[in-house]
Every structure is written in C-alpha cells, then in structure tokens.
C-alpha cells in the first residue's frame, strides 16, 4: 500500500496542480464558469453588465435550490425526481388559494403536499427500500395527477400571483435581485447543515457506507425520511419563488428544472453513488448551466441543435471535471 502522504517531494508540476485541484475541487469549476462568461463577452461584447448579472442570478437561484435537494439526496446515494412536481404543486396551490384565503393559510396549504410527498418518499426509500429513482418518480406522477384533479376544483376562482412573491421573484434592490434574500440564508443553512451538524454527517456516512453507519448506531430510515422531507420542503419553497419569477401558473411549471438540477449537482462534483460532494460546488454548477443556456441562446441555433449541444457539453464537463479532481 503506498501512502500518498509520504510521497517524495519532487513531483511534476502537472501532478502538483492535480493534487491542488483535487484538494480544492471548487477552483476548476470557478475557472470554467469564468471561461464561459469570457466566451459570452467575446461573442456579444458588452452583454456582461449589471443587469445581465442580476438576471442570471434570478434564473440560477431556483435551479440552485432544487440542485440543493439533489445534492443532499445524492450524498446518500439517492435522487429526488419529485422536486419538479412538488415545486409546481406549491406554486399552483399558492396562486389559486391566495385568491380567497389569508396569505398564511395559503402558504401552509401550499407546503402541505410538499411535506406529504417528502414523507412518502422517505418512508418508501428508508423503510421499504424502494429505489429512490423509482420512488420519487412514482410520487411525482401521483402528485401531478392530484394537481390535475385539484385544478378542476379551482377553475372558477382563477389565480393570481401574490405581490410578495412578485417582489421576491423579479424585484431588484440596490442592483441585487431580491431572490438573494431567500437564497443566501437557504444556501448558508444547507452548507452549515452538511458540514457542521450531526444530520449532515449522517448523510455523508450513510451514502458512503450504509453498513458502517448502521454499526455505529445510525438508523437508516430516520435519516432518509428526514432527508426526503427536507428536500421536498426546499422544493416547495422553490416553487413559490419560481412562480414569482415566471408569473404564469401551469401544471408543468417547474418540471423543466428537474433534470438540470441533477446535472448541476453532478457538475458541481457530487457523486451520484453517495458520500462525496458539497453544496458550494452545486451552486457553481447551477451558475455554469445558466450561463451555458444563455450562451446557447445567443448562438441563435435551432432549439434541437441547442439541446444536443447542451447535452454534449454537460457530459464533457462532468467527465473532464471528474478526471481533474479524482485522485487516482
């Protein structure tokens, strides 16, 4: 067994750089982000300004929060495909209930399906050991069905976007998008949870070696159930933010964000096999995807071509990134 720490001093520059990157996986990601922005600026001189920055942040934030759900579930070796449906349900219920209800009541009603779906996901994955992919896909379909039923019942009352969500979704204060008032605390909370709380430790431990966690006295189902409820709650809050941004309630509002949220977490260096990763990388991953989308939009390619290119770039970036930071 060669002990890496005891390797002789003279190592090639490339090797040292690789070690450096492996120890600080955020740096290559940030470099990539900067490169993308520079390319954008070269293609469209002057596009990168204060307004563009605020706009990018606005669209990256909902993606980044949903990607936070994926990061946390992926750390345990899972995935949460129901986040899109949960976000849509919260947004739709909020927009329809606010018409006749007190805002606080509407908020609680909007978060109710999030908690329920999270609970069902958690019990399915944690207690009955259903594969997270299947479990969350299933609850996602069920949720969509319920939403369609619900839509019939409120069709007469109409919908409106509460002013507060409008302000949060699109407002700008001193050049900063108001969404940051939500995002910064959420991001700090996620990072803190993952690094400095017992729950965060357990997410990593369960994902790395479930058996070892069990031998240390960890009850898997408790961790997993709590995790999927937290993930769903975050998705619900994202839905409220997103409706303030998009301003058009529909039955597939947040659905297009689901797969990009997985991609953002993967690009950010979180392993889908669990035990590895963190939220800071995911945030940068979400920014990278958002900038990439802008870049492809201004290339004025047809939609199909854009998607093809988008897919290839995601694959390439992920492969290259893993190659840079993997230490073997």
């Amino acid at each position, binding site marked *: 067994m060669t002990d890496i720490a*005891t390797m002789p001093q003279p190592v090639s520059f490339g090797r040292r750089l690789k070690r450096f990157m492996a120890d600080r996986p955020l740096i290559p990601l940030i470099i990539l982000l900067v490169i993308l922005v520079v390319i954008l600026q070269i293609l469209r001189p002057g596009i990168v300004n204060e307004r563009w920055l605020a706009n990018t942040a606005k669209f990256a934030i909902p993606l980044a929060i949903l990607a936070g759900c994926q990061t946390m579930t992926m750390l345990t070796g899972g995935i949460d495909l129901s986040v899109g449906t949960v976000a849509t349900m919260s947004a739709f219920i909020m927009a329809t209930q606010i018409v006749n209800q007190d805002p606080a009541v509407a908020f609680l009603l909007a978060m109710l399906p999030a908690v329920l779906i999270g609970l069902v996901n958690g019990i399915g994955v944690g207690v009955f050991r259903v594969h997270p992919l299947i479990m969350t896909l299933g609850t996602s379909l069920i949720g969509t069905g319920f939403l369609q039923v619900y839509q019939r019942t409120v069709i007469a009352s109409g919908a409106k976007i509460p002013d507060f969500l409008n302000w949060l979704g699109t407002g700008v204060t001193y050049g900063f998008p108001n969404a940051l008032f939500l995002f910064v605390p959420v991001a700090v909370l996620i990072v803190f949870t993952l690094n400095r709380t017992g*729950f965060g430790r*357990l997410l990593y*431990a369960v994902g790395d*070696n479930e058996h*070892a966690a069990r*031998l*240390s006295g960890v009850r898997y189902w408790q961790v997993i159930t709590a995790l999927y409820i937290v993930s769903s709650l975050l998705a619900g809050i994202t839905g409220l933010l997103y409706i303030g941004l998009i301003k058009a309630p529909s039955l597939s509002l947040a659905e297009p964000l689901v797969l990009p949220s997985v991609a953002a977490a993967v690009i950010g260096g979180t392993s889908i096999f669990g035990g590895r990763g963190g939220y800071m990388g995911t945030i940068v991953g979400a920014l990278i995807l958002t900038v990439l989308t802008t870049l492809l939009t201004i290339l004025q390619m047809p939609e199909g071509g854009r998607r093809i290119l988008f897919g290839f770039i995601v694959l390439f970036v992920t492969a290259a990134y893993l190659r840079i930071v993997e230490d073997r």
Partner: protein
Amino acid sequence: MTNNPLLDATGVAKNYGAVAALRNASLSVLPGEVHALMGANGAGKSTLVKILTGAIRADAGRILIRGEQLDVRSPAAARRAGLLPVYQEPSLIPDLDVLSNLRLTGTPVEPFRAWVRELGIPDLDIRETARHIPLAILRVLDLARALAVEPDVLLLDEMTAALPANLAEKVLEVVRRQGDAGRSVIFISHRFVEISALCDRATVLRDGSTVGVVDIQPGIEEKIVEMMLGTRIEKTRVAARAAGDVAAADGSRPRLSVRNLQLGTKLNDVSFDLANGEVVGVFALEGQGQDELFAALAGSIRPTGGTIDVDGAPVKFSHPSDAIQAGIAYVPGDRTEALAMQRSVRENIALPFSAALRKWGPIRMRREQVVVSSAIARLQIDTRAQGEVQRLSGGNQQKVTIARWIAANARTILCFDATRGIDVGTKQEIYKLLRELAGQAKSVLFYTSEMEEVQRVCDRVIVIFGGRVVDTFPVEQADEPALMRAAYGLPRGARADVGILAEVKPGSSAEAAS
C-alpha cells in the same frame, strides 16, 4: 492398494505478492481412497484446492494425474481431467431451475436424479428454481451433480457443514462407497469424527507446506494436531493475569451474561459470562458460529432463543444502536464494513456521536476535536493522510475503527479478528490497548483466528465448535495444543491412548489399515 497414485501433486507453491499462501505442498491420492486434507486456518488448504481444480494457477509445482503431467489451466480443464470440486458455497445459479443448471454444466439428468434419490431426497422437482431450494438441499444437489459425471477425483470442501444429521449421514455413506468403487475423494473437514469414519489417509498442511501424511487409525488425532501445530507444540504457559483479579474483586454481577443463546442451526446453547475488567478470548475454526455470536451481541441479528443480560438486566437488541446504548461496541474484522472510506479520520471517529436523533443538531466542533484528538493520540494513528480514510494504511484504518469506540467511551468492545491482515507493530499496539482497557474495568470479547493472540491478550478463552461452547480455559492453560484440540472438538485432558476415533467407529480404522 499399492497402485500408482491417481493424483500426485508435488512442490506446489503460490505467492500473493509478498505473502506465500503455499510454499511446498504435496498431495498424493491413491485410487479408491478417501483422503483427508487437514490444516489449521490459513495453512493453505483452500489455496491448494483452488489450484487442483484450476480456479487459480500455481507459481511452481508439478501435478500428475494418472502419471501424466497436467497443466490445469481452468476449471473446465480440471473437469476434463476428472477432477471435480464441491465447494462450501452452493454453486447452482439461483435464478435458473435445477434442470437448466444441469444443462449449463452438461450434466446427464438421469444419473443426477438417481444420485439425488440415493442421497436421501426422494421428491426433488427439477423444475424448481434454485433460489427457492433450502441451502442444505442445494449442497446435496451440488454433490449429486458432481457424482453424476463420475469424476475420478471428487473434492469435497466441508461437505457436511450445515447439513442436518440425516442428510449428512447419507452423504458420508455415498462418499464411502465412492471409495469402494475405485474412485478417489479428497475430503476437507474440521471434524475428526467424520474423518475417522470415512478416510483412509490424511495429508496435513501447515504454513503452506505438507508436513505429513498419516494413515487414519485410533489415536491418530493427537498426532495430526501435533503436526498442524508443528514446533509450537511446546506448551507455553503464561501466568494468570492481574486483571483477572480485578474482575473477581468487582465480583457481584457480570458485565455481559449470555445464557443458552440459540441462532438457527448456527449457534446452539451458548452460555458464558464477561466480567468488568476482563478480556475473554473466543477461539474457533472458520464458520463455527462465531460470526453469528458476535452479530447477536452487537444487535445486528436477533437470536432465536436464549437470553443476554447486561449488568444483570435482560436486554433484547433489535438494532446495533440498542447495543451501543448499552455500551457494547462491535469492531468487525473487515475494516471496509466499519469505515466510511471517503470521509475523514475525524468524521469516522465521531460518527457514533451523531447517530441518535437528538444529536442531529449543530456539532460542537471544538469539543469534538478534543475528544477525537485524544483518541487519535491514544491509538497513535498516523494522521498525515487523514482527509480520507481510504488513504491510510490497513493498520491505521483498523485503529480508526477502534478509536471510534474509545472516543465514545464504550464499556464493552466486541473485537472480531481485529488484527487480521495488519502489521506486527500495530498488532502489538492493539494488544496493549486492549489490556489497558481491561485495566480500566472495561471488558473485551476478543475473537481471534490466531492462537498466539489468545495468550497475549486474554484472561480466559472460550472455544466454539459447531455452534457450541466446547470448552473454557483460563489463559494459563490456554496453550496452543490445548486450544487446537478443543477447536477440533476433541476432549480436553492429557492425550488418551484411546482417542475418540476408537469410540466412534472401530470398523473404519480396520478398513483403513487393510
């Protein structure tokens, strides 16, 4: 029986890196013979078997079959040469039915059926999926499948383990007749009773070399035990430990009291006590139920019967966290079972702290740092590569698994072969640590597959054979010959002129001698 040997292997050697699994093994099997292959854990039995059946290739040596030199490159080649193994693990593909499994190996169906009936299973449905067939029956089917192709040399690895008595009897009978029919059988077993009833001769391996070939006759088991032990036969005596006195003084009730523990067919009526300040060794050959005993005490599996008392109060563990709550920590022999390999040393050591629901909140980092550092210092873990446990050496990884429970201040540690595969220096440190723990009135249950460790660490040792506690020694009597005899299920005491062979089956020795 003075014919030429059917199988003759000489000078077989196999190295895994720097480790020699086999140095100079030889095995010669005559036609019509049932030949026992014996040796303590790690003597090289399984390596030799794998080489003979083509599963792995030898680095050196010569294998003659019917006088012809043969290069057994693959299991298929061994099959063609007439060498067929039946391993301990069932080899039918679980998702196929029996018939498809037979087709897969080109086994003729009618002889197979005949053998199955012969072996005491009259009503087998060969359309049954292998997955749904009980383990004991599967093993018999494996044997029938091997017998059906009429191999010249049949290799049976612990064939009767996990078989109920009636099936085991049939199996032994069939194997015996196999010899009478002029075919040979190589029979690997830890059970002297079976060997005496069945075998003509035995080859004994020690440390990768063949140390002797003996005819099976009454009283021979003493000689075989001697050969398996080799030069270590001198009885080393150590003084009873002072820590034992501490335990006695503490007196009143044992830390852990196990009574009549039952676990399926694996554990039978196991009873023993573990006192505060005591290190109790558990010695056993492979697969005698020690895994299940430790799993039951650690809360990983539920026993089917018997009681476990902790500090005099009965407990029922349904999850490892219950055992941990009672201050009982389990250190598995396989480090990969216990460590989150991609996480840091610190996180691994601190893992039990966060396990309980009420400890999910913010971690008090500074206090954790203090506790973890002191555990690291106590075990002298090399922390140069502490960012990921997988970068540590094996010995340091093992130390982390123990440090976790030192940090958690567990009162009882269940150490399952914790020194397996680590360097000598680290082993010494672990021995010392366990003795220190005992000095602090903690208690340790210490399973080991290396006999010499018993005297280094333990106050007492219990020996398990076939799921039962067959003997208990104070350390001063637990020399290697005594342990080895007990582990093979032989009665204690000075060597009797009449061994158990004579008691069991007088007839077989006469046959062997003829």
